[in-house]
């Protein structure tokens, strides 16, 4: 059973509270009690609970009223109603208002076990639903890692071995080499495969947001924290946490994560109670972390914690043998997705793809194939379909006047960016309005 769930018993009779408390303590749960609805709401506000056993008949706020308030303010909290024989109608009303189940006092020991089993399944479904909902927009295409080169075969056997252990893994490699796919493969082959795989890009989130995403928070922990929320470290329970761009985390976050890895316990923001966490950490970076340690940007103790096993993913230019296989895979994938009948690549086009240096690695290759398939009018992709990969012709200024040099330079940058004004302005370090003025001033025109 999931001993991490927190339970509160709400009953005005001390003997019932004590009886429940005693029972659940023997089951190893964390249990609190409250003698009234008001006290229960106070405690919910302070600590948050996963499961409430609520007696219907209580002086002041009765169980049904409390159920209504709990469902309104803490919709994820599961409520089981406790009722006496003769008040079945009220129990039915409670079920309609969102109670997960009800127990008729006194109940057989096995009934309590069955209710707990049902409730824990429900909680698992809620957690999975939240996880999937949160991840839906982030789900990208998950494909098997493709590669027949010696380098990739070595990685495949390493994944098999690494998956069996529970040690932290550090995946290093340039951008676009498929580090997340490798992390997913390690997870899928590990004993944690049935549990969530959660990927977070540390470089994409500001420190404070990363902290609340990972650790969760209690209601009122900061402005806007209107409801308590579990962090990914809790949600990942039993699964694998993938922290991409770990090199971008602040020293403070490194200290926090180091503590979690050592103690396997966390506290939510705005809360003091310790919560047990169980996950495997896989990190990835494109930086040289040892160099970052020398520079003082990365903590040495944290580095040794996260790189028990290192998987170095080669860049695509170092495994060009895999390009035909990858090309074939992406052509099939995008012709299927775009419903275009493109199923071949000419010999010239393949030679071009194999000669190209692929600074953006597999991701760049995938984007190139997608673009070529979308724009192609024939069944076979030709060399011309990949003309955007060829280095642009760099013009040189006709005269050496500053004005001509500037005009030529702007024109070259615009061509390089396919006349994407925002990107060109970024490279030229001017704002978009200024770039438009320059284009007008020099009479530049986009080539047809």
């Amino acid at each position, binding site marked *: 059973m999931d001993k991490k769930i927190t339970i509160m018993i709400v009953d005005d009779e001390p*003997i*019932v509270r004590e009886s429940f408390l*005693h*029972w659940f303590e023997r*089951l190893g749960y964390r249990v609190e009690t409250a003698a009234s609805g008001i006290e229960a709401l106070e405690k919910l506000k302070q600590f948050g609970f996963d499961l409430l056993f609520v007696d219907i008949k209580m002086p002041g706020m009765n169980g049904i009223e409390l159920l209504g308030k709990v469902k309104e303010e803490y919709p994820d909290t599961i409520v089981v109603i406790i009722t006496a024989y003769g008040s079945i109608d009220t129990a039915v009303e409670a079920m309609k208002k969102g109670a997960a189940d009800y127990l008729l*006092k*006194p109940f*057989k*020991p*096995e009934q309590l076990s069955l209710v707990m089993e049902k409730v824990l399944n429900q909680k698992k479904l809620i957690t999975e639903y939240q996880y999937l909902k949160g991840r839906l927009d982030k789900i990208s295409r998950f494909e098997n890692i493709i590669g027949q080169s010696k380098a990739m075969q070595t990685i495949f056997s390493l994944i098999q071995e690494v998956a069996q252990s529970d040690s932290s893994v550090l995946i290093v490699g340039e951008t676009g080499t498929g580090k997340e796919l490798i992390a997913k493969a390690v997870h899928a082959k590990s004993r944690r495969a049935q549990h969530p795989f959660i990927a977070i890009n540390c470089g994409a989130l500001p420190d404070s947001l990363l902290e609340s995403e990972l650790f969760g928070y209690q209601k009122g922990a900061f402005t806007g924290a209107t409801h308590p929320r579990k962090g990914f470290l809790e949600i990942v329970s039993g699964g694998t946490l993938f922290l991409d761009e770990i090199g971008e985390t602040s020293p403070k976050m490194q200290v926090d994560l180091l503590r979690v890895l050592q103690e396997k316990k966390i506290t939510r923001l705005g809360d003091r109670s310790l919560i047990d966490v169980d996950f495997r950490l896989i990190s990835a970076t494109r930086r040289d972390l040892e160099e970052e340690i020398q520079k003082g940007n990365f903590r040495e103790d944290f580095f040794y914690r996260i790189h028990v096993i290192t998987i170095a993913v080669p860049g695509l230019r170092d495994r060009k043998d895999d390009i035909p296989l990858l090309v074939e895979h992406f052509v099939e994938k995008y012709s299927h997705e775009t419903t275009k009948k493109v199923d071949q690549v000419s010999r010239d086009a393949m030679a071009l793809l194999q000669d190209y240096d692929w600074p953006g690695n597999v991701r760049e290759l995938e984007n190139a194939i997608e673009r070529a398939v979308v724009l192609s009018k024939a069944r076979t992709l030709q060399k011309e379909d990949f003309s955007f990969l060829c280095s642009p012709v760099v013009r040189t200024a006709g005269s050496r006047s500053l004005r001509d040099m500037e005009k030529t330079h702007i024109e070259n940058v615009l061509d390089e960016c396919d006349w994407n004004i925002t990107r060109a302005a970024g490279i030229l370090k001017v704002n978009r309005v200024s770039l438009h003025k320059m284009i007008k001033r020099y009479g530049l025109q986009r080539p047809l």
Partner: protein
Amino acid sequence: MKPIGVVSFGEIDGMVLKAIAAHILGYLRIDTEIFSPLGYPGYAYDPRRLQYDAGAILKAFESLPVQNYAKVIGILDADLFVPILTYVFGEARQGGKCAVVSLHRLKNNPDGSKASAPLFLERAAKVALHELGHLFNLTHCEDERCLMHFSGGIRDLDTLPPYFCRYCSVYLHDGLALL
């Protein structure tokens, strides 16, 4: 090291007490003593439920001078209840000193037939060892092949083995070492 005490509330077949003491000695390798019976706990009778309140018995039991024993198991024939449950086989406070075991529901099989003497004794010993586990601060175990696994009825009790899993054994011996 102080021994584990085994005592009956009222008259109980001496064979039951001996079987329980032998199981404790056998599995825990700790001295066990059977001492003079205590009075029948009439004070704990609830006329509405026609049962005996396990909590009330435990409270009275814990107030008795049993300092010569590390832990004490009380055995009685009465049908026990706690306020939220229809019945319990036994009751012990987590990490406490005393536990009670009821024989009342161990005598019959789920189909209503009478249990054989060896099966009845095995059930009594299992419940006693389980409650003793709680006295040594063991919680219910997830392993279905462990005596500390929760049993909701007589059928569950019969499927439990009469010994602890590897983890519970370690915790139990940690508890014993602290005595």
